[in-house]
């Protein structure tokens, strides 16, 4: 057995069945060893997309996503994917080949200090210097990636270490990380205070962030909210933690969110923030929100609590456990008049300005598409105006909404959707992107076709990098660098890859087009022609 065999064996021990990667000389021993394994390795078309695909896979399966690349440019291409996963706390194991350890530091062919370069985007990183350490490192890496606040872990393995013989292979039963012990259970004294505050509150509100979904606490959140009748708003990453038809759910907050959701934040007297960072796009002035408000902040990462706003009651712990424990403490309360007030705000919300009639209204499209999806479907939104429309008008049922929230990485949706589909082939997966983000990732159509990964893709074509154009227009009253000009004929792109194509130009045909698009088997590409001057609101 050599080091590369040991890495593969460790992946098997961790239950890995699929990984995404791109080879190069420095990682060849690994890709040779994997021939002997049942692990499916999916060849993507660019390393960045290997990380995004692993991210989509991880988010749908709840397992750790694995991506593998070679040294130098292979590794540096991964960085955007790693940073995207880090910003959204997605558990990934990223394995990179490295030049011979004797040559490290001498600037040889395809050498890059990837552990150094990726340092600020990983939860932890390893440069393996001894093949005998591989089992311990792999065990630790999976543990670190998947516990506490989840995130990517990088393992850089020089080629000589991959080729080095290993006498005996023993996968450790447990990890020995003396100081790394994430808090799971919330502190009992703090939990008691929540009950007391609930009893006093008149206008409580729950803000659900991505942490609710990451800790698999969706049903606990719903149980808790319904038990006490507390309304819920979400961040972008928290979308799909509650069903859209739930009367307690008010939608997304933030500068692109629903005005009544933001108003609820301003008016509430008890704000329960769960698994959210209270970051700038969600809450532009945190101190305004927390004036005269009791703030309870629940997060598994103690460093998030108090970072952007000081809480009244900090609770460090895993949300799933914290909600379950909070339910044990019965409090009698009635917030129906507050819920009533909020629903009157909702009814008063002005509808979005419709685009010119000869174009597709993306808001209506998102609403119709998502309500026609299967209940547990996975909807992957890209970045740009399309993301804002998706966030604003997505109808959630029991499915999952994926997007690059923290980093806002364009080109995320196509690779993440193919990863998500591989994570659960039984679930319907759609990717919705703009013509800009589609062109960043369309090389992955080949990955889909070659590996029989049927994903439905929708491209909002407005010929512009619309969100930037909108920003420039609002800031400078002019724009530059945002005209996409000659967007290729997408029907021919689809034809080149052998993917069925449909172009939607008329609002009147929207329903029948969506129906037949979703009905047809296999992949599909739909192009929606949008008003080039359409705006988010």
């Amino acid at each position, binding site marked *: 057995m050599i080091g590369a065999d040991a890495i593969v064996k460790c992946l098997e021990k961790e239950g890995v069945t699929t990984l995404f990667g791109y080879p190069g000389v420095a990682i060849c021993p690994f890709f040779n060893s994997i021939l002997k394994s049942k692990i499916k390795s999916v060849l993507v078309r660019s390393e960045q997309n290997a990380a995004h695909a692993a991210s989509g896979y991880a988010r749908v399966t709840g397992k750790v996503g694995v991506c593998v690349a070679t040294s130098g440019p292979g590794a540096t291409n991964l960085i955007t994917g790693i940073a995207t996963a880090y910003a959204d706390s997605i558990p990934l194991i990223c394995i990179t080949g490295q030049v011979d350890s004797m040559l490290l530091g001498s600037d040889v062919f395809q050498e890059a200090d990837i552990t*150094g370069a990726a340092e*600020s985007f990983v939860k*932890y990183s390893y440069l393996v210097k001894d093949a005998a350490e591989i089992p311990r490192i792999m065990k630790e890496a999976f543990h670190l990636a998947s516990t506490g606040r989840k995130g990517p872990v990088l393992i850089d393995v020089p080629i000589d270490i991959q080729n080095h013989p290993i006498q005996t292979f023993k996968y450790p039963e447990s990890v020995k990380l003396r100081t*790394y012990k994430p808090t799971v259970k919330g502190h009992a004294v703090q939990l008691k205070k929540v009950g007391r505050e609930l009893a006093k509150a008149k206008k409580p509100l729950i803000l659900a962030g991505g942490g609710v979904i990451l800790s698999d606490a969706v049903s606990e959140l719903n149980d808790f909210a319904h038990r006490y009748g507390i309304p819920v708003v979400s961040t972008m990453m928290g979308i799909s933690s509650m069903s859209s038809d739930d009367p307690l759910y008010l939608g997304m907050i933030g500068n692109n969110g629903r005005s009544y959701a933001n108003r609820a934040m301003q008016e509430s007297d008890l704000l329960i923030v769960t698994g959210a960072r209270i970051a700038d796009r969600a809450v532009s002035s945190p101190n305004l929100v927390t004036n005269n408000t009791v703030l309870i902040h629940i997060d598994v990462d103690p*460093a998030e609590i108090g970072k952007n706003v000081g809480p009244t009651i900090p609770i460090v712990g895993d949300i799933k456990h914290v909600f379950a424990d909070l339910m044990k403490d019965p409090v009698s309360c009635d917030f129906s008049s507050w819920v009533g007030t909020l629903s009157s705000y909702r009814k008063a919300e002005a509808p979005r300005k419709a685009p010119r009639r000869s174009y597709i209204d993306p808001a209506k499209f998102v609403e119709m598409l998502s309500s026609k999806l299967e209940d547990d479907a996975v909807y992957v939104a890209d970045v740009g105006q399309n993301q804002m429309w998706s966030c604003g008008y997505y109808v959630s049922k029991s499915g999952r909404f994926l997007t690059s929230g923290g980093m806002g990485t364009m080109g995320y949706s196509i690779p993440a959707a193919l990863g998500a589909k591989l994570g659960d082939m039984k679930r319907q997966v759609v990717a919705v992107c703009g013509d800009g983000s589609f062109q960043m990732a369309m090389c992955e159509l080949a990955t889909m076709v070659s590996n029989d990964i049927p994903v439905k893709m929708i491209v909002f074509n407005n010929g512009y990098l619309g969100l930037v154009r909108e920003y420039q227009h609002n800031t400078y009253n002019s724009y530059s660098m945002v005209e996409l000009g000659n967007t290729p004929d997408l029907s021919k792109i689809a034809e080149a890859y052998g993917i069925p194509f449909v172009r939607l130009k008329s609002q009147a045909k929207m329903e029948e087009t969506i129906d037949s698009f979703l009905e047809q088997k296999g992949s599909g590409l739909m192009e929606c022609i949008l008003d080039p001057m359409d705006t988010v609101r």
Partner: protein
Amino acid sequence: MVRVIQLIVDNTSGVLSRISGLFSRRGYNIESITAGITADPRYTRITIVTSGDENILEQIEKQVGKLIDVRDIRVLDPEDSVYRELVLIKVKVGEEKRQALITVCDVFRSKIIDITKDSMIIELTGTQSKVGAFIELLSDYEILELARTGIAGLRRGSDGVIHLND
């Protein structure tokens, strides 16, 4: 507000860069940083002098505490800790003023560790304020070169000694 933080970290490759990198990318100040191996060669003790308001200091402790290599983090409270800094000062001094300088050195219990016709190297160990006061006193002379180590510190007494077993 200035605060002295003591870290015990695993002696892994790159650990110092992980810690200093965290400070620089999050915009925390490092007034001084010293690192050296502990009695157990698997661990390194790092003493960082940092500054900021109460919120920033709290964030520093939390963010540094999150680093996997960090075994222990604690604040060295001036009330129950000792700090020392070593400084080497090369002063331009000829024969005529040499004796006066030696007198000053004696008062501060500093050592003269090198002497040439026209210069002297003085070694002084002490708290930062003592070092500062000494340098201030030398303002009558021309300081040619100066090397400060930054402070190292320990808590007083045997309470709170960190025992790392595994």
